[in-house]
């Protein structure tokens, strides 16, 4: 089993706990051994970098140093915000002056270059697609999906260096490989409202509402996401969106790891499907019908 350092991220312990659960299950199934960073701390997410860049880098760098201590130079995380912060910190600390400033805030300095990658990138680059194909026991045939990547997973391209920054295809290709029909979703990287759900919920309802509307136009059965905030804004807040916009959306929103796990035959409990707010039952009914019909 390939070992890889794992940074779960704060929301994985609460509002996106199903993302953490399904990520761990899927990685185990695909031969990736996730080694949790010992006593990891918050990367600072958006709030830290809006206050100060050295503070933000230091909060991230504490975790890069933890990776170093594990003797590894690659850490993976499911959350694009954590990923962006870790990568930004690593990049900024290539400059000796900045590194000194950031390390001055830390107990244990970060001395080596550590790379951070998304779990999605690790799966796509380190796991043989044939292996995934071979392990599919419950194909997603019959499902019409919209893959929504969120605004920062692939942007800015110079920093994130993964997939096309306007029309990313990695998730689309993965879902297609699992047997689903993936629609050409036009707003793949358009922001959902991010962390404004608490201070300015009106912004989230408007932006996330647009995303749901675009999906509904294409008649999708469900959305597939790779970001805790995106998933939360589209799923947990779907009720708020409906109230604010006088709408009646009822579109389930999955994490890609949940659908991947399902296709690989992993037990539902390990995928946290019950934690999804918009009931995903219609999706599973459709899958069953299609499976029976063929």
């Amino acid at each position, binding site marked *: 089993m390939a070992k890889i350092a794992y940074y779960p991220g704060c929301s994985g312990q609460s509002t996106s706990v199903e993302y953490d659960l399904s990520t761990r299950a899927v990685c185990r199934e695909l031969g990736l051994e996730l080694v949790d960073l010992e006593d990891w701390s918050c990367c600072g997410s958006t709030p830290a970098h809006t206050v100060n860049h050295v503070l933000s880098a230091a909060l991230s760098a504490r975790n890069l140093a933890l990776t170093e201590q594990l003797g590894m130079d690659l850490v993976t995380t499911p959350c694009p915000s954590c990923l962006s912060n870790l990568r930004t910190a690593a990049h900024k600390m290539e400059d000796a002056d900045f590194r000194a400033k950031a390390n001055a805030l830390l107990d244990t300095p970060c001395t080596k270059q550590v790379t951070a990658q998304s779990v999605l990138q690790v799966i796509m680059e380190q796991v043989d697609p044939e292996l995934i194909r071979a392990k599919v026991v419950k194909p997603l045939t019959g499902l019409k999906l919209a893959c929504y990547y969120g605004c920062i997973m692939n942007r800015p391209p110079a920093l994130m260096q993964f997939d*096309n920054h*306007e*029309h990313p295809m990695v998730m689309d290709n993965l879902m297609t490989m699992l047997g689903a029909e993936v629609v*050409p979703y*036009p*707003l793949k990287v358009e922001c959902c409202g991010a962390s404004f759900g608490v201070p300015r919920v009106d912004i989230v309802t408007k932006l996330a509402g647009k995303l749901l509307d*675009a999906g509904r*136009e294409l008649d999708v059965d469900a959305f597939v996401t790779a970001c805790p905030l995106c998933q939360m804004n589209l799923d947990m807040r779907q009720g708020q969106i409906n109230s604010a916009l006088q709408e009646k959306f009822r579109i389930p929103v999955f994490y890609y790891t949940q659908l991947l796990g399902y296709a690989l035959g992993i037990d539902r409990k390990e995928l946290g499907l019950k934690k999804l707010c918009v009931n995903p039952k219609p999706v599973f009914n459709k899958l069953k019908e299609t499976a029976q019909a063929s």
Partner: protein
Amino acid sequence: MRIGVFICHCGSNIAGTVDCESVVEIAAGFPEVVYATDSMYTCSEPGQEGIITAIHEHNLDGVVVASCSPRMHEPTFRRAVERAGLNRYMFEMANIREHVSWIGKDKAHNTNKAADLVLMAVEKLRRNRPLVAKSFTTVKKVLVIGGGVAGIQAALDCADGGLDVVMVEREQSIGGKMAKLDKTFPTIDCSSCVLGPKMVDIAQHEKISLYACSEVESVSGYVGNFSVTIRRKATYVDWTTCTGCGLCTEKCPSKRSPDPFNEFLGTTTAINIPFPQAIPKKAAINPDTCMKLQKGKCGICAKVCPVGCIDYEQQDELVTVEVGAIVVATGYDLFDWHKYPQYGEGRYPDVITSLQYERLLSASGPTGGHIKRPSDGKEPKNVVFIQCVGSRDRSVDRPYCSGFCCMYTAKQAILTKDHIPDSQSFVFYMDIRAPGKGYDEFTRRAMEEYGAQYVRGRVAMIYPHGDQLIVRGADTLAGTQVEVPADLVVLATGVEASQGAVKLGETLRVVPDQFGFFVESHPKLKPVETNTAGVYLAGACQGPKDIPTSVGQGSAAAAKALGLLSKEQLESDPAVSKVNVNRCVGCQKCIDTCPFGAIKAVTDRMGRLKAEVIETVCQGCGICTVTCPQGAIQLEHFTDNQILAEVNALCPPKMNNVSFE
């Protein structure tokens, strides 16, 4: 010797940071210098007269001018000393402007350095020998590469001026990009109506030989005597008998051949004539899509051809021509707009380029001149034009302005209204560039009379919404984001050098800039000449430009060629290499290292191998002189002794009385 030294002030250009009077004083003490003076502008008429007078009054037999770069005025001063009766090579220049006064402000330092450079020039001049140029005859023929409007103008002017012309055009027909246009700004002239007669003139002019569907393969020789090999690509049709009747194209069953003339909108037949006014009006077969050539089936065109000119066995043919001058008019191509993923990267059929839109507008185009959406053939109502796609954009490595897109976009907006009266055009722009005669007024017409809505701001993304495309841009003047549901989006795509231009440049030894456009000799004063003697530029290959400017350059290049070849003979540069046959041991190392192939092996009377320089081809680079182990080959005017004299002037050898002569 009796050497005269002239220190130039160049106004304050030199005098501002160099104490010219001091340099004069110092120079007066240099060996063999009998006269030293300074002048305000040595290159001016009084300045030159001053030199000539001094030569006569003081019996000078050599002159040093310390002024600007020799690239600037060496020819000027050489002519001046020649007028005074001296050999023009008994003249040296010290560059105390670009190399001294322009790079530092320390006067003492500069004065010292200027004096040093003058001493170097004097020491070299003391070893100079008079050189006499040889004359050679020239071929009174011009090669024009490229049959677009610039090349056509150059060819016609040369031919009318009495020169023979060979025109080589890569595509099946001449006409270039102008032949693809529907109408032209600002007069809304029909493009093929104004270009057509010129194209016919090319075909019919007795002095012009046209090789279409051909490319220049190699060039050797030198100004006045180039030898060019042209590859005539196989068309599988005998063009000496083809009448252009078009029967073959009507019957050809292979209808999915890519159609480059129509910018790949729609397809054409494997055997085709690109457009009705094509010159030459001959058919050609695309071997990749012809069923006979690919699979050995069909052969219908050969059966129906009334003159039996189809020849499936035809091969490429190589032709060699001798010419005296070359005009490069290879034009432009469009930037690859797929580098803007936010515009769909080619995924959306209703996002097209401006050239594709021209083909939709053109009556001889794939839709018969009706504007139809490529996706469903419906007439668009909202047409959005986006300017600066691949221009003025550092992020895609195209920082320059393509010069004519503002104009053709206004034209296209006007024509759209003509074709579809209830349409609405939107033009997203950053600035409007309309410098020519009637140009600005033309763009205003689009806005004022034809109702085009001009929005100042870029477009961030285009994405599909039902049948339409949502264009999301900014109106910076209104200060907000805007959205337009478009039926059709036309991208005013920036231009770049023609495909293959850089490679052709290598063949011709013409230098491309970082964007592939050919570099002219001087950006202000020599826009159609290159640093390779005898090779001229015309049209968009030198930089983006509109039709009148291209035509102007075509005539300018022709004037240069006519001037070059108007003399009976040309003078060759005598500063070429020369072999001392007594020292030459026939090792042939120089022949191997000469990059121009300017040295050949000969046998002397005793049957010994010796090297001999072909003086007209030698470019005076000096590589042979470094290579020769015997020191048998020397570059005239830059001999080892002459160069070492300069070195010794700067760094006197520690040993006294050692001479390298």
